[in-house]
């Protein structure tokens, strides 16, 4: 294949992966919806049963004509499981297609495929999905699917708006630090995303618990404490990686390329803000009065600063890191 063929293949594969992941997202939402239906029916059945038993032994086997039955619950449960499996299979497929797209992009441009905003978005989402799949094997995080997939689809969709054709790098980016610096930033970002997803669901779950018990899909999530724990663990993994990306490899490269390790370029400012915010989160979890809800909100704020650094700083602030186009 020629370079152009690879480039075209990559573009088509990104589009295909986006479509597959959108379907995966729908399936994961359906999994939640049927799951919450199963829970509703289960409760309704539980509420109805004592009455039936009291009504007479003859009717105890036959469910009420219009009311929900445990068969309904099982049907909903089965559908939920089915959609869960579909969602997961599509996620794997979408990941593989996206991986092919990213590799093809690299072949088309004859370099690592993260030299501009479009490439960073597509490769970054590929890392996110890979990380999610690995984490699922290690610690069963499929309950995060709607958030991770939704995020992936939105970012892939938006990445089309900053599309640039495959081509060589500007001289400033032509360095092996591009590999080290950007990969570490993407890995850290993927972890931050998973942490933020877990924090969001943690907040929803604790609110529901406080209001007299989680209903619907919330009740099918892991316990609030274990989601909080997961958020902490991925963030505790990502934070040193982010420190390496933003405060070690970044400054080393900046010294090589621009003659100073740190110059308060907007990208650097926001990388610093993200670092400080996550440092605050890690501290908050150990500080009375900040544990739990406040810490979770802090982690979401920190993730928002990370996202802003990727989107806002690239597009709105002039600076040395303006590689959007």
């Amino acid at each position, binding site marked *: 294949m020629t370079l152009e063929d690879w480039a075209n293949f990559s573009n088509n594969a990104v589009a295909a992966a986006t479509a597959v992941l959108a379907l995966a997202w729908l399936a994961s939402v359906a999994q939640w919806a049927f799951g919450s239906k199963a829970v509703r029916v289960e409760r309704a059945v539980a509420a109805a049963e004592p009455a039936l038993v009291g009504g007479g032994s003859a009717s105890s086997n036959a469910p009420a004509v219009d009311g929900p039955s445990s068969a309904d619950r099982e049907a909903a449960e089965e559908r939920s499981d089915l959609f869960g499996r579909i969602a997961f299979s599509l996620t794997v497929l979408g990941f593989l297609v996206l991986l092919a797209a990213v590799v093809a992009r690299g072949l088309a441009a004859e370099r690592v495929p993260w030299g501009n905003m479009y490439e960073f978005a597509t490769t970054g989402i590929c890392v996110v999905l890979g990380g999610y799949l690995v984490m699922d094997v290690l610690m069963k995080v499929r309950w995060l699917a709607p958030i991770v997939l939704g995020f992936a689809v939105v970012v892939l969709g938006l990445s089309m708006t900053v599309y*640039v*054709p495959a*081509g*060589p790098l*500007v*001289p*400033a980016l*032509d360095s092996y*630090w591009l590999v080290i610096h950007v990969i570490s930033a993407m890995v850290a970002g993927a972890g931050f995303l998973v942490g933020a997803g877990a924090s969001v669901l943690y907040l929803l779950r*604790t609110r529901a618990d406080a209001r007299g018990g989680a209903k619907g899909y919330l009740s099918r999530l892991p316990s609030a*404490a*274990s989601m909080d724990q997961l958020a902490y663990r991925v963030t*505790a*993994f990502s*934070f*040193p990686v982010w*420190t*390496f990306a933003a*405060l*070690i490899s970044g*400054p*080393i*490269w900046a*010294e*090589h*390329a*621009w*003659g*100073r*390790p*740190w*110059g*308060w*370029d*907007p990208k650097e*400012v*926001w990388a*610093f*803000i993200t670092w*400080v*915010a996550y*440092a*605050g989160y*890690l*501290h*908050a979890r*150990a*500080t*009375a*009065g*900040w*544990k*739990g*809800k406040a810490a979770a909100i*802090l982690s979401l704020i920190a993730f928002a*600063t990370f996202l802003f650094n990727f989107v806002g*700083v690239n597009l709105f*602030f*002039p*600076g040395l890191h303006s590689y959007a186009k």
Partner: protein
Amino acid sequence: MADDRRAPTNKGRGGAAPALSFLETLRWAWRQLTSMRTALFLLLLLALAAVPGSIVPQRSVDQRAVQAYFERHPDLAPVLDRLGAFHVYTSVWFSAIYILLMVSLIGCILPRVAVYSRALRARPPKAPRNFSRLPASATYETEADVETVLAAAGATLGLARKDTVTVTDDGAVVEGEVRAEKGYLREFGNLVFHVSLVVVLVGVASMSLLGYRGSAIVAEGKGFSNTLTQFDEFTSGGLFDTDDLPPFSLTLDNLEATFELDGPQRGAPRSFSATGTVIDAPGEEPRPFEVKVNHPLRVDGASAYLVGSGYAPVIRVRDGKGRVVFEDAVPFLPADATYTSNGVVKVADARPEQLGFQGFFLPTAVSFGEDEIPVSAHPAAANPLLGLFAYYGDLGLDGGESQSVYVLDKDGLTQFLGDDGKPLRLMLSPGQSADLPDGMGSIEFVELRQFARFQFSAQPGVMIPLWGVSIGVLGLVLSLTIRPRRTWVRARRRDDGVTVVEIAALDRVPRSDVAQSVDDLAARLAERTGHTGNDYDTASEAEPPKKDEG
């Protein structure tokens, strides 16, 4: 959630507190400053304070952007300037926050180092009386004696710091416990991380106080020596002495710039490379160098970076008397991506009148019509064209005030006019020359050269923050991954000859797997010592109920 701890402070608010002495007030202030909550608050405040510097242009980053901001917001800019908005990261308020944070940090580290050093010397703590109150506990019974159980426990607990304490009755050991604690490296890592942050701040301060940064334009065939007068721009730290500039010098032989020739990214820069020779210090042998983007030139005590490039047409000017009064490569500064460049020529030696030229240079000139002003289509020099307006009179160089070489002071100058009465416009390609009206002289575009813009800088101590952060990250990883745990194994001989073994664990940082670990420990221990089957769930497994370890 955990707000219950605040309640007592609110209660005490009503009563009149006794007046604090000065010393007590100081101690109170110190406690407040070094509390975790204050540190957290300062940390978040620092993040917040860093935001404006990314929105408002910063002098240290882009001086011209600051000027442009002043022109666009004539009312707002002076107010912002007074607030330090154009130098956020050296402003009083930003400094105040990070100095407070640093004091808070040190105030936090010092006592913790003391506590940690005591903890290192201390023995693992005594077992609590009631194990069932601990987050995880297990128990089983065995016929093995207490000493056997304790020895097995010591072996099973592995690398933890351990103490074994026994109680004897009539020479026989009737009761004893193994106290184990592990995870001391967590606090060690934590302290290393926080100390390294202080090291980083010290390193950054040293860099900015002792370092310097300057830039200079060097045309092909020309040289640069590292003295103050040769810089176009120069800034240095408060403790830097300009006599300490490293005495190197260099000559630029060739600047090579390549650009994308076609395709969607046509005109995009692809590579810049400057080659020449450098003399590290007077008297030393010259050595060849190549500086590229991402590949700076290192000389003793300083580095040179290629930060820009452009064109420097060699211009020769003869005055009215026919003498060559000017011949030099004149840098024209690129103003856009196609290297449309602007420049000025000042000919102070021309007689009878001084001559000045101002105009543009286009590397690949394209004209769309006879009277249209040509534009540059590509940054590479495919069709170089120099366009100049000419002036005569007084260049204003004698006033003693220093003048930018890129600006023509037109106060004492008169513009040459063409035959049509409009300002005279000279268009020159390499090798072409043009006469000025009234026999005032001539100008020739001899040849085209390029120039390199170098940044020269020294950052003494640049490795301090790098090592600081690197070691800090290792400490951070220790503090985030190591989980301290205290484990106790207690064995008590009952009168019926059965030994009751109790196991419990307490995590300093709560973990969800503590119960599982205690069960595992109990199972492994029971396997070593044998067990009677009572009170122990896994007793039903196919293993001999009694297995004494001799």
